[in-house]
């Protein structure tokens, strides 16, 4: 049901763009106005979201410990999975951001006969996740050929490398295949595994269908329906130089492709896709595990409330503790009999 809902939304969006671009004024709306608007929303709300996170205090030092913590000198510390220094944290973050280290540690629980519970390593999510992200990055950077003139050398290098197999004309880009395969896997994973399906929401399916839609329309434009790349570049390059121009030969499928990307940009800051910024602000990843060396001050603390040590506590309540038979570090001072006895003693007279 949730799957169909997400699929329905994406199909409806595609229809909206296809029909809308054919209406009077629709070409300017879908080709110029909405892309600008979406880009502005993307940047402004991305920053707003990060600022919101930056304003949230971290009351505790909560790095996830993925290995042996810093301990006694003869116990080997896992410096990257449980870093205790800034340098270690930087290393951990690099591994996380570029290689998805924590997904690589993914395990799968299985119940065998017995019943016995077994945990095995499960690398598929990591594999397809990383394939997806890097092929998407390559595809996005390749698109710079439509947004720059003169075209930077690294875009030419990507073009060349990506079409390395020289299959057909126009040459097949490997990343197109990898991208579609990886997104399809990520979707099937949610559909096929009952436990993952159970926790999947419309907000999980929607970005996947959106990406599939973007990939499919892009592939159709390049290999099947064929579009006039030169006039498309006049529009896209026009957009970034604030001088957009939509030629007659720019057709419906292009507007569908562009509108899906427009939606992706505008949706990004409000969705789970914000993990792109969030990974950098995750206290479980970006804090050093040094709570035994450095005192973490909770920013919520009321400065007028001073720390109260156990020794101080015992000083306050020692008499009561002794009375109640609780062990104390420091005994009560020996009783000075005289004044107490005097007071207590019944009058002799």
């Amino acid at each position, binding site marked *: 049901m949730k799957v169909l809902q997400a699929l329905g939304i994406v199909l409806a969006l595609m229809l909206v763009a296809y029909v809308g671009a054919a209406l009077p004024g629709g070409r300017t709306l879908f080709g110029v106005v909405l892309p600008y608007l979406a880009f502005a929303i993307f940047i402004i709300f991305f920053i707003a979201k990060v600022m919101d996170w930056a304003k949230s205090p971290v009351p505790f030092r909560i790095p996830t410990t993925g290995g042996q913590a810093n301990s006694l000198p003869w116990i080997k510390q896992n410096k990257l999975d449980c870093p205790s220094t800034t340098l270690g944290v930087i290393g951990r973050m690099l591994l996380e951001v570029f290689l998805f280290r924590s997904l690589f540690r993914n395990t799968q629980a299985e119940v065998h006969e017995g019943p016995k519970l077994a945990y095995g390593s499960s690398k598929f999510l990591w594999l397809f996740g990383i394939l997806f992200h890097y092929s998407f990055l390559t595809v996005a950077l390749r698109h710079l050929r439509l947004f720059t*003139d003169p075209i930077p050398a690294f875009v*030419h290098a990507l073009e060349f490398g990506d079409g390395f197999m020289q299959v057909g004309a*126009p040459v097949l880009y490997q990343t197109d295949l990898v991208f579609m395969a990886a997104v399809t896997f990520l979707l099937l994973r949610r559909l096929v595994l009952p436990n993952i399906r159970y926790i999947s929401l419309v907000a999980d399916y929607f970005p996947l269908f959106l990406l599939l839609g973007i990939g499919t329309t892009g592939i159709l434009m390049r290999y099947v329906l064929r579009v006039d*790349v030169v006039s498309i570049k006049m529009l896209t390059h026009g957009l970034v130089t604030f001088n957009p121009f939509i030629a007659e030969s720019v057709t419906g499928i292009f507007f569908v492709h562009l509108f899906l990307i427009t939606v992706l940009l505008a949706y990004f800051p409000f969705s789970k896709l914000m993990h792109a910024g969030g990974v950098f602000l995750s206290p479980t990843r970006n804090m050093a595990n040094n709570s035994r060396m450095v005192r973490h001050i909770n920013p919520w603390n009321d400065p007028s409330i001073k720390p109260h040590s156990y020794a101080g506590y015992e000083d306050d309540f020692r008499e009561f503790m002794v009375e109640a038979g609780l062990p104390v570090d420091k005994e009560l001072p020996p009783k000075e009999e005289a004044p107490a006895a005097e007071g207590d003693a019944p009058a002799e007279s």
Partner: protein
Amino acid sequence: MYDKGKIIPGLIVFVGLVTFPIWYGLATTAGPLPNPEKPTNAKECVEPVEFMRSSHMVLLNEWRDNIVRSGGTRKGTTADGTEYVRSLQKGCMNCHTSKKKFCDECHTYAAVNPYCWDCHIQPKETN
């Protein structure tokens, strides 16, 4: 706000990266729009010009496979009856006599660099 010293520079880098095409466009001057030279020795291309503009590489691929793999014919006629050779060097480049002033006009603009010329001989450019 916490960790200002790290988050603000991070955001600046982020905005810088996603707006790369904009400031790159401001920093560079774009070349002229492609203006492929029209042939003087013919009036018509081998297919309608809209089709050629978007799909000439598909056509070339078809010719190549047809001729090299299935021994297809090397002769063709345009809609108005002009005969041409179905060949990259002896066909396309017979009417479009300059690679630089025709093919490269668009290809440089769209960052395409067909590997065909690794083997096929380019026409001699007369400036």
